[in-house]
């Protein structure tokens, strides 16, 4: 049994991520955001479910498709929006951009421009916990694409031999950029690889936020009992191409339609309405609140100063 408040919070988070990405794509089309922007559209339930199951002092490691992770972990929309617009008030003072947002305050070790690059870093956060004798856990988000990088195999093994409190969250969106997983792996159910390393693993519907939350809760318990690491394969699908400028024409229409109809936001809304007395009007209030917060974040970002070139040049002199 879940409280209405809890289900509302899940829905608020998942909707906020959806809205952040949707609004940012508009800003991108207007030329206000440049560079690479990898939307998390269609995968929102994974970040939301995982981060909701974590404790305040736990860590996450994010990916290039990382806005959802940051928001779900409690990141501030204003600082995120300012960063993707490259402003001084952003998380990284405009020096990182969409692919490099990190937030030490929420234990977000950061997004990563290198596919798979964050996996060993997450293992290291787990190793640090182990050396200190702490009780925290680390959730490492990565993708089916990253699972074919050598560091995945190495890192799974390291975490296993050192019994680290690490949850490998494999967001299987079934595409490595444009390459379908069926062609990149003989066994597309990637969690099966974990067995070979002696790591407990499961596969869940990554579009169902409660399924993700419950599986992560179990994983946190397993890690805290000293029985980590754990791997969770969350099956999902992107709602579009690899980044904003990729139309994703290689994605089969029927499959895309199926996943769009099996939408994480809709599923979360159904959970909220069927498991509590929340009605359409209450939902609208949650959405209005999230929309308002995002409008304020965008205004804040737009009105924020560009980083000073002079002070940048002064800083780099010391290198």
């Amino acid at each position: 049994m879940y409280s209405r408040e809890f289900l509302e919070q899940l829905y608020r988070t998942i909707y906020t991520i959806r809205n952040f990405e949707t609004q940012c794509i508009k800003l991108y089309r207007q030329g206000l955001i440049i560079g690479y922007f990898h939307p998390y559209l269609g995968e929102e339930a994974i970040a939301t479910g995982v981060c909701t199951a974590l404790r305040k002092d736990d860590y996450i490691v994010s990916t290039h498709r990382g806005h959802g992770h940051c928001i779900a972990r409690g990141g501030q929309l204003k600082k995120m929006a300012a960063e993707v617009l490259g402003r001084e008030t952003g998380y990284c003072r405009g020096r990182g951009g969409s692919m490099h947002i990190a937030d030490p305050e929420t234990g977000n070790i950061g997004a990563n421009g290198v596919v798979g690059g964050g996996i060993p870093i997450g293992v290291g956060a787990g190793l640090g916990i182990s050396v200190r004798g702490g009780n925290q856990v680390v959730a490492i988000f990565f993708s089916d694409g990253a699972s074919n990088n050598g560091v995945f195999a190495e890192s799974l093994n390291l975490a296993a031999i050192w019994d680290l409190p690490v949850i490998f969250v494999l967001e299987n969106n079934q595409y490595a950029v444009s390459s379908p997983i069926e062609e990149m792996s003989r066994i597309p159910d990637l969690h099966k690889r974990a067995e070979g390393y002696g790591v407990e693993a499961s596969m869940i519907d990554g579009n169902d936020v409660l399924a993700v939350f419950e599986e992560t809760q179990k994983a946190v318990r397993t890690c805290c009992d000293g029985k980590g690491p754990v791997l969770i394969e969350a099956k999902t699908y992107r709602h579009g191409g690899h980044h904003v400028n990729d139309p994703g024409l290689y994605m089969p229409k029927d499959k895309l339609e199926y996943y769009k109809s099996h939408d994480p936001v809709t599923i979360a809304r159904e959970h909220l309405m069927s498991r509590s007395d929340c009605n359409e009007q209450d939902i609208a209030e949650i959405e209005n609140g999230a929309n308002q917060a995002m409008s304020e974040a965008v205004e804040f970002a737009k009105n924020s100063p560009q980083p000073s070139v002079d002070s940048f040049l002064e800083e780099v002199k010391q290198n």
Partner: protein
Amino acid sequence: MSTDTGTECAERQIMYREALNEALREEMLRDETVFLLGGGIGKRGGSYKVTVDLLDEFGPKRVIDAPISEASFTGAGVGAAITGMRPVVEILFVDFTSLIIDQIVNQAAKYRFMSGGRGRVPMVLRTQGGSGNGLAAQHSQSLEAWYYHVPGLKLVMPSTPYDAKGLLKSAVRDDDPVIFIEHKLLYMENGPVPEAEYTIELGRGDIKRSGRDVTIVAWSGMVSRALAAAESLACDGIQAELIDPRTLVPLDKELILESVRKTEHLVIVQESVRRGGVASDIASVVQAEAFDYLDAPIEIVAGRNTPIPFNVNLERASVPQEPDIVEAVKKAVYAK
């Protein structure tokens, strides 16, 4: 260890590898967030015995033997550093750091910058390089230029036991990633190291020999060779000043420039291949900032642009030897 009871102030002599071991031990005692990670560093004590006995003293949580998964255990060092630890990661040969380039270049070096200064990576990567042991092309390289090139890294290359200890202690305490490259021929070399604690600031070079006629800049394994060359040159009446920058990043530019302003001649010696090396960069700095003081073109004595050969004669011919340095100095000093 035997003590020299005859001389009251005789300084203790220990080996380079023992000095490194002392530095690690002292830093681990001082700060419990310091831990060691690498292949064969625990029970085996490291290939060059740098980490010997540390497993017994600090236990397997702080002296961690890793499988041959260089990219991932280095990345684990990066992640531990970001989250409050001070790992010292060992990669057996600098040649094998090719396997960890992403974690060093894209992750460790950039994290502080990319996070707008809010994140730090206080990690030391210890490794060793250089030729002279017949270890051939994949175990003998001098690859410091790779790391010299990347903003966000510090780069340390000690040439004596004293420097090795003081610099490693500072590297461990530094809040940024430090690439610490030892030289395989130096591990068994003895040198004076005081019993009392000391550190050496990163970015401070050292005058290994004073002289008025020519400045020689050399680091790591080339320092002892350049020193021998300087002694031999003294017999010909040329007094060379030998400067060991000790850390290439940050580089003690002022110490080099000051010496060049005095001697008006500069020879730079590097074991690494000539092309794209640190020596060329130091030369460019000196010609830009002390051009008017130079009496002759800057000479660079460097490794040949070749993989290191196995055969001992070919190996010797690939990297600077004492006579090469003597010749280059004479060329600079006698230049018309």
